[in-house]
């Protein structure tokens, strides 16, 4: 088994995954690679589930692990970030989805990768990105009645119920 894995590791050249996706009819934009040469691909919000399903099921890519869902507050927009890993080819890919700040909604990946369930709850908790079709979208780290989403840049904590915690 280990011989098989060693013989089948393929070096993925820059832009190769985006090219595979584009050849199969997905409208994705390759972004600049990260410093440790991980490919970053911009995906539109309505195509995310299809792209992730393709990357998981295709024999040339076979990204079978989703190991992080996180988010970035980029001013006008929020960015949902997905880190995928392939145990067969030993390579990573990062999917980024730019979302409108006034209505940050994106389809949940929990039907494709069940690991995304709690990660998406955390992203919802701290950044307020709503994941449509998520089985149990509620706060995971903060108390349920918390007001606001603390990792947004414009967050100000002014909850009168927590006045006992003031400095």
């Amino acid at each position, binding site marked *: 088994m280990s011989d098989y894995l060693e013989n089948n590791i393929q070096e993925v050249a820059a832009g190769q995954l985006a090219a595979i996706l584009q050849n199969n009819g997905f409208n994705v934009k390759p972004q600049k690679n990260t410093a440790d040469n991980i490919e970053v691909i911009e995906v539109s919000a309505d195509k995310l589930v299809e792209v992730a399903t393709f990357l998981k099921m295709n024999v040339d890519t076979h990204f079978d692990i989703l190991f992080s869902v996180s988010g970035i507050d980029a001013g006008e927009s929020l960015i949902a970030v997905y880190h995928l890993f392939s145990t067969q080819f030993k390579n990573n890919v990062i999917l980024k989805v730019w979302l409108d700040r006034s209505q940050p909604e994106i389809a949940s990946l929990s039907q494709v990768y069940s690991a995304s369930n709690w990660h998406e709850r955390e992203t919802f908790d701290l950044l307020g990105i709503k994941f449509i079709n998520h089985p149990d979208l509620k706060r995971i780290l903060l108390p349920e*009645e918390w007001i606001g989403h603390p990792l947004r840049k414009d967050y100000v904590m002014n909850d009168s119920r927590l006045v*006992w*915690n003031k400095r």
Partner: protein
Amino acid sequence: MKVVITAIDFLYNWARSNSVWPMTFATSCCGIEMICTSAAKFDIARFGSEVFRATPRQADLLITAGTVTHRMAPALVKLYEQMPEPKYVLAMGACAVTGGMFENDSYSVVRGVDRLVHVDVYLPGCPPRPEALLDALIQLQKKIRTETILDRKKYLEAHKPRVKLSDDSELALPLDELEIYHWGVQTEGYELNKDVLTRKNVEDNCVRLFGK
């Protein structure tokens, strides 16, 4: 009568102070030092406190080893209320004393467990060494030896939780008669905070509050 009570106090406090049973409440890295203290090298058993209980109903001492967040606060208050009287709290580490490095900007950290419950011994350090925890335990033992059974009612009054829990809320809510402790200074009547601090302002306020 006084002689009898003093004799009873002496025996009672001697027994209690040499068998302080702590509860396992380790919320972050201070917990490692607490575990280390109970292990063979530092050996908290020399002071009669080796019995770390996993239930509040058998514990005398709550060592809050680590950061306490808003999510954890109701659990801490609930555990504290379940402990039998007389009960003691040892705030271990900078986070449990004042909030530590999360003091200024954190949205989720409680600024010291004394906002939630009455604290008997404060132990600073990030994290404190096991010797420091042993010293704090000795200080607590000294404090227990000074108590008398006549003051039990006063003691019970002082050891109520400082926040209240609600059935339909996960947040620890303020009491109706709200008391906020700012480093031991009550905000009420402390008017220096309200104005912009200039030299003249401070002088005027000092004259008004304390006289020339």
